[in-house]
């Protein structure tokens, strides 16, 4: 598992992909942050981070699109599957590598709260809680992206399905006013942004933590199942 983790992480930084995505993320993040500062309105770092987490819907599936699709396409999955590493080991190794890149991205944004602490006032506790929510959200997106990457040989399809799927789940929350009863409670339950908002408000609940962790677990498990299933059905 550790071998795969190392290899995946290296692969990210051998190709321009990780640099480009981190660059784009930081650029948009910084530009908008500057806009917020100069607008003159009262500023809440948490609320800001909440808004820009939406960007992750596009960034993270692009980050994870190659993870399994490329292996399948170039035939290197044979090497992994015939080595003495188990399928859960392969999936976890790859997941952790993509997660690391995402965490790196997040750590880079810590410059801003640090600057705010030095030159101004930052309400530290809500900011921490917000970052925890941000990381959980991102960790879930990475798991979802890896899952869509395992479904196909084509990186483009993997990215598009990943982005599309996340937008769809996000959209369910946007139109939840149309629903009633069980459907409404499901829409609220699945809505990751709704849960993320609680973190932003400084409400750190184990319920939401468990929600994100189990979603991550679910999609990693689904990825393992897809890979196993493909072994059984491919011709």
């Amino acid at each position, binding site marked *: 598992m*550790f*071998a*795969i983790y*190392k*290899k995946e992480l*290296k*692969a990210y930084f*051998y*190709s321009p992909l990780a640099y480009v995505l981190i660059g784009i993320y930081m650029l948009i993040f910084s530009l908008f942050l500057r806009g917020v500062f100069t607008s003159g309105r009262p500023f809440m770092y948490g609320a800001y981070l909440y808004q820009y987490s939406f960007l992750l819907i596009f960034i993270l599936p692009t980050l994870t699109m190659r993870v399994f699709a490329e292996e399948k396409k*170039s*035939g*290197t*999955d*044979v*090497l*992994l*599957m*015939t*080595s*003495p*590493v*188990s399928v859960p080991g392969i999936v976890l190794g790859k997941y952790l590598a993509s997660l690391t890149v995402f965490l790196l991205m997040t750590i880079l944004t810590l410059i801003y709260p640090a600057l705010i602490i030095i030159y101004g006032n930052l309400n530290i506790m809500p900011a921490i809680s917000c970052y925890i929510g941000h990381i959980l959200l991102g960790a879930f997106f990475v798991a979802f992206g890896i899952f869509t990457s395992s479904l196909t040989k084509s990186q483009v399809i993997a990215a598009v399905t990943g982005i599309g799927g996340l937008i769809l789940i996000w959209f369910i929350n946007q139109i939840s006013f149309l629903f009633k009863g069980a459907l409404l409670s499901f829409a609220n339950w699945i809505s990751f942004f709704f849960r993320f908002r609680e973190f932003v408000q400084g409400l750190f609940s184990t319920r939401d933590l468990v929600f994100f962790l189990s979603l991550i677990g679910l999609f990693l498990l689904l990825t393992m199942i897809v890979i196993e299933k493909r*072994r*059984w*059905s*491919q*011709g």
Partner: protein
Amino acid sequence: MIEIQNLTKHFGPIKAVNNINFTVEKGEILGFLGPNGAGKTTTMNMITGYLPSTSGTVKVAGYDIGEQPAEVKKRIGYLPEIPPVYTDMTVKEYLYFVSDLKKVPRSKRAGQISDIMEKIQIDHVKNRLVGNLSKGYRQRVGLAQALVGSPEVLILDEPTVGLDPNQIIEIRRLIKELGKEHTIIFSSHILQEVSAVCERVVIINKGEIVAIDTPDNLSRNLGNVSRFLMKVEGPQAEVTNALSEIKGILNIECDSNGEENVFKYTVDSEKDIDVRRPIFFKMAELGYPILELQYVGMDLEEIFRKLTAGEEGNTEVQDEEKALDGGAENDVEKNEGKSQEEQGEQENIQQDDKEKKSKLKKKNKKEKEVE
């Protein structure tokens, strides 16, 4: 070392591998022979644990692939048809990654990898990106990958496909050398290759084993015909007549050559009788110059055709003809699963065959089915 019992693999309605049995002894080099789509790769994928079998067992060094996959995988080095190399790594990095993956102890890695690179002769490209290497070198890197962790068993899927003749000879030499330390199964559709390298051959067709024997025995029992290609200047009918009078000649096929008054002949003769001299003198006597005379031997296709013909008998030929329509549909289904390249290859072979213009229509149809 390797025991395969009743191994079967179905892909939906298609039986890719049907109930095959064989064993490979320790230190043996076994050739795995068959036309495209015969089930070679599927079988190898099952031995290495890449594909699970529908039924049957594979045991390597006493461990069952279904029950203790990790133990089996530790003992196998696998070179699939497409070398599983990462194009964005250098050769050295790639081999280090593989040894990490195969859990080679850290202290042994450097020594082992430099040994392998020396043996496979990729030492001088170790710092180049795999993506920039030629097909032949990628194949070698793939082979090096299989050797990492010094597994007891090597499974090589068509290791010589797509290489130039020099590289083919080089890889064959390597395989032979590796055979001293490893048990090897390697697949091919070229008989000469197998007979040059292997001690024993398994011939597989349509997912079933049709023969297991040493290459010598196979060609002795099955290849009892020598084949010559010749070009003779002179009237076709007379030359054919004269040839058919020569003792030992079994069959003559004639084809136009494009040149005026020159015809191409494919002559089959009994293996024990050398017909080259009689042909020369006969043609000299008649005054028809021989422009070319070449021994071509029997290729796998011929032997293979003979094998299936011998086992099924002539009585079944008619039944097969009836079943042909259904068979053709089946082929189409199989083709869908394959890459376009492979399909192209098959078409080429079919075209080649058509050019050969076989003697009997019946046989011709049968060939198509075989492919």
